[in-house]
């Protein structure tokens, strides 16, 4: 439980923006992920939350080396994989997998779900003990699909079932670490609860570690042991789940929590909401100093000039000059 399975240090991913024309030059960078650091312990779930454009998905993909990191290091089980080539990554892919947000576009419509799940074995040239078909059907059974549906196509399944197919595919090679990128946000609430429970069970049964990326703080609260809040490519606050939700220290975390509508009309109408003004700034030209200063009600001159670093407050790490 204590040794970190994943160590990310100062990870950045910039996407260059080219000017138009033949002699195109790089005009600037979209600083999608800008110097984030965290560790993930074996068997743990770390929630990565933030609004659209905060870089949470880019972070997840960069950690799996689906994007080449711009700078920083990624260590998986103590091994520095930052500069590994695709060929060198391939054997490691059995250990690290991904579940995607959209169960409609992440499954090839022309393949049966049997062959979609079996593709992992084929690519890695692994033959499971009792044959591929048996292994796939066991997986289907485990994630709550009818193993007899082996030869059906993705369109014959509902959204929730398709997400289960995606989960079975990620589990096929018995990975240790899975990046779940918004795995339930395309699903209806009643189905969402089924899939969250399934992910919970699988983590306990297989000893998995999740990096759970989501915009929905209530879902993240439910599944994570620790949560990192991102804003404009940076981590604003990283804390154990109960800490973060009970005593948020960063103004952005506070605003985010207060913006979530509670499904209870009595408390919902009584509580005071912090309504942020404006939108997330453009990540090509992030504000100087603290990136949140343009929307922060506590911002002072220092926030506009000096960038705060993550400092320890109790059990939490907070990047703010004036934390609560």
């Amino acid at each position: 439980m204590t040794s970190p399975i994943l160590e990310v240090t100062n990870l950045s991913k910039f996407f260059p923006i080219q000017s138009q024309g033949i002699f195109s030059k790089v005009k600037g960078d979209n600083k999608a992920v800008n110097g984030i650091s965290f560790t993930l312990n074996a068997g743990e779930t770390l929630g990565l939350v933030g609004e659209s454009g905060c870089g949470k998905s880019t972070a997840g993909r960069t950690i799996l080396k689906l994007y080449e990191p711009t700078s920083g290091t990624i260590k998986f089980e103590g091994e520095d994989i930052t500069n590994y080539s695709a060929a060198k990554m391939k054997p490691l892919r059995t250990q690290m997998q991904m579940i995607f947000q959209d169960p409609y576009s992440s499954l090839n419509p022309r393949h049966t779900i049997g062959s979609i799940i079996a593709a992992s074995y084929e690519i890695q040239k692994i033959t499971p003990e009792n044959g591929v078909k048996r292994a796939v059907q066991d997986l289907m059974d485990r994630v709550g699909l009818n193993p007899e549906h082996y030869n059906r196509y993705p369109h014959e399944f509902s959204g929730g079932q398709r997400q289960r197919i995606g989960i079975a595919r990620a589990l096929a090679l018995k990975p240790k670490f899975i990046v779940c990128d918004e795995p339930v946000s395309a699903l209806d609430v009643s189905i969402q609860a089924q899939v969250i429970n399934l992910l919970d069970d699988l983590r306990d049964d297989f000893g998995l570690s999740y990096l759970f990326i989501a915009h929905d703080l209530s879902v993240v609260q439910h599944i994570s042991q620790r949560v990192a809040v991102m804003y404009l490519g940076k981590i604003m606050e990283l804390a154990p789940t109960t800490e973060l939700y009970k005593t948020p220290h960063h103004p952005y975390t506070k605003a985010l929590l207060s913006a979530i509508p509670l499904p209870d009309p009595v408390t919902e109408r009584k509580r005071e909401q912090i309504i942020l003004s404006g939108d997330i700034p453009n990540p090509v030209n992030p504000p100087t100093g603290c990136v949140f200063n343009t929307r922060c009600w506590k911002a002072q001159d220092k926030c506009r000039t000096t960038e705060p670093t993550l400092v320890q407050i109790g059990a939490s790490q907070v990047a703010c000059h004036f934390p609560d």
Partner: protein
Amino acid sequence: MTILDVKNLSVGFPTPDGVVRAVNDISFSVSAGETLAIVGESGSGKTVTNLALMGLLNTNTTQISGSAMFKSHTGDIDLLGMDPNELQKYRGQDISMIFQDPMSSLHPYFSIGDQIIEAHQVHNKVDPEVSKARAIELLGLVGIPDPASRINSFPHQFSGGMRQRVMIAMALVNNPSLLIADEPTTALDVTVQAQILGLLKDLQREFKMAIILITHDLGVVAGAADRVNVMYAGRIVESAGVFDLYAKPAMPYTQGLLDSVPRLDRPHTDRLVAIPGQPPSMISLPDGCSFAPRCSRISEVAGNKCLTTHPELTLRADNHSARCFLGEGVRA
């Protein structure tokens, strides 16, 4: 005062496999100044209901029946029995609609000013300058900074939240008495969602309009609605005031929905209570209660009644009705 009274509305889409019964015999009414939420999961018929009311379904390929009496500026009209050209006089004038996706509901080639001015000109024979002044006024009202110059901007120059504000300005330009908001904040981030919901509340107070709020988010409903219709498989399965509904849900589906939402205000227990299974096919609805195959309480009703007989919507308390054999005939 009731401004919209919908009676026995049904909508069916014929397909080669059979008729998809998207909406089945639903009735409800909306009073001036109130917010009625229609809540349900995807495919429950909440959007189709309102598309039918707005006359936005193709009548050649859709079977629509029922009536919808609406108090317009010219008197009572039946929205469902009306000639499409005639309906055009009321749409955008007495009733407006805002859609889920602000990215695709604005025309990318026209400035936002042109689009709002057009909405005003269609219903008012006034000088375009008057319409422009009205557009600027509305943009200011929905919180667009510097409206006089932003009126010349194009949709791509706005963020999602700003575009939704533009959509709201356009919908309100003619002072409608009823606004249909179809998942107005679903495509937006939570902090922006809070801004837009606050804005709608303020505008409702100012314009005294009724709002039909279509959403799947029980949190949004809790904060914004006066009354709630819960829809499942094309039917209203429970209808109540917002406080009653959350305090005493009478239908197991409503209870299930409330239980399956992970919530911040409660300690995170180890498991969520999920509703097993999935909604039925709208082509072949079950004989009995359409929720029966997923319901955990059917054994409490004698003789498999839930699987064979279709329950009616019956009154449980004042202004609280539910479609369930459980607790039927018991008035609180």
